């Protein structure tokens, strides 16, 4: 993949807290129109990786480039066309849906903001809730607001940390379809974490299995299980979680 066609380039990324190594020298790339699943058991280093890409956590070593821009040196420029949604980061509950979208739209300096807000409100079926404070919304509605915020600046890099974790199956399917649609219509690359292997198989073009801060496996979610003697992606996930060393040796 050439530098210009890479949305995200992570090289030798490492984060260490004292003796604990949370992320251990991982490298990967993400191209435009590509959805990559970042998978692994709790504590594998997924959220730590996402936080470093978002610039809210400084790596111990390594390099992160978003569309060729080094986040350590040009943070604001790198994050202008990046956005994220995470189940653990709801938007301020004391502001309405519209107010939150307006404020974050201004922070991202979105052109034609008023029109863009109307578009994302429509896209995520939030029109009826536009004047409702986010704090009184159901968790599913809050997730939709977070996703609407994440789409505001037409991101070229979208980081989604368990975006459908609190959604009912029907809404989750709609959200997956919308994100796929966005990726197909634009040039966004998406880094997606999820514990729902069915979802990952449906959505992701490629997956990275993380365990103890290292990438153990990488490949197509549809063919990867059989390549490692497993029937399903879920079985492979469980194997990564329980026997990471065995999988590491088989590489």
């Amino acid at each position: 993949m050439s530098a210009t066609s890479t949305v995200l380039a992570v090289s030798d990324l490492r984060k260490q807290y004292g003796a604990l190594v949370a992320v251990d020298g991982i490298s990967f790339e993400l191209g435009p129109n590509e959805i990559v699943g970042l998978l692994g058991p709790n504590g594998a280093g997924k959220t730590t990786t996402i936080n470093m890409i978002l610039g809210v956590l400084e790596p111990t070593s390594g390099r992160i480039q978003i569309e060729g821009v080094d986040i350590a040196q040009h943070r604001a420029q790198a994050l202008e066309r990046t956005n994220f949604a995470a189940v653990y980061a709801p938007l301020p509950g004391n502001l309405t849906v519209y107010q939150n979208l307006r404020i974050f739209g201004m922070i991202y300096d979105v052109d034609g903001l008023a029109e863009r807000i109307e578009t994302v409100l429509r896209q995520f079926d939030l029109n009826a809730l536009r004047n409702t404070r986010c704090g009184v919304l159901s968790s599913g509605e809050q997730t939709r607001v977070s996703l609407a915020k994440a789409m505001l600046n037409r991101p070229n890099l979208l980081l989604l940390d368990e975006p459908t974790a609190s959604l009912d199956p029907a809404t989750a399917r709609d959200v997956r379809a919308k994100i796929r649609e966005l990726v197909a219509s634009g040039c966004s690359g998406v880094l997606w974490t999820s514990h729902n292997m069915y979802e990952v198989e449906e959505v992701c073009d490629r997956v990275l299995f993380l365990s103890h801060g290292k990438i153990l496996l990488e490949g197509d979610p549809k063919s990867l299980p059989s390549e490692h003697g497993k029937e399903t992606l879920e079985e492979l996930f469980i194997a990564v979680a329980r026997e990471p060393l065995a999988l590491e040796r088989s590489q």
Partner: protein
Amino acid sequence: MRFTRVSAIVLRQFYLLRGSPARVIPLFAWVTIDIVLWGFITRYLNTFTRSNFNFVPALLGAVLLWDFFIRVMQGVSMAFLEDVWSRSFLNIFATPLSISEYVSGLVLSSIATSSVGLLVMLFLAIVVFGLSFFLYGLVMIPFLLILFAFGIALGIAASAIVLRLGPAAEWFVWPIPALISPFAAVFYPLSTLPRWMRSISYALPPSYVFENLRAIISGHAVSTSSLVVGGCLATLDIAIAGWFFGSVYRNAVRTGLIARYSAESVS
């Protein structure tokens, strides 16, 4: 620095104020109580003076200026605490917003909110208690500027303390003005203080304001050089507070505190 991003922080504060009387009332309630209380105390004290000394400009003027300083400081820290209470650090700082844009937004919010308190205090002090600002003259402008600058510096420093120590450290913010007031010599001359306290007072910009305020009331000339010292100290304090906030933020990014702020970790 992009003005749109700075405006977003100010707009956030405006939305919060517009939708919440609980946030609007404190902008003027406490200063109103202070001015009314001290207004009547000064009237009462005036009944005891034989030399026609007027306590209104001495005490009520000092209370007005001190309350203005507190409003400015709390204007910055309250705007910051809104992000603490709504747990929005991750959303705010995972954007292109820079620290200087964020802090500028807090300062502009404070200008707006403290102006409300100042206007209410001026109205009450002038209309109800007959405080005349002609007595102070144009020197009132540097008085307000020095106190404003020091209020901004302390507001930024207090926010940095909360960022460093976690949400529970909000407790540290509120008593800061009370801790400073004995050294700032708001109600008495610096000469009243013991030497060790005076040496601290000389480092505090408000002490230069209040010394000059009393000089005017006693019929003495304003010391321009001491006001310049006060102004320089206040400017230096802003620079130190900005550096302190930046250092705490960089440490929070290094340790991961920003991403897990609500966990109240002080690591």
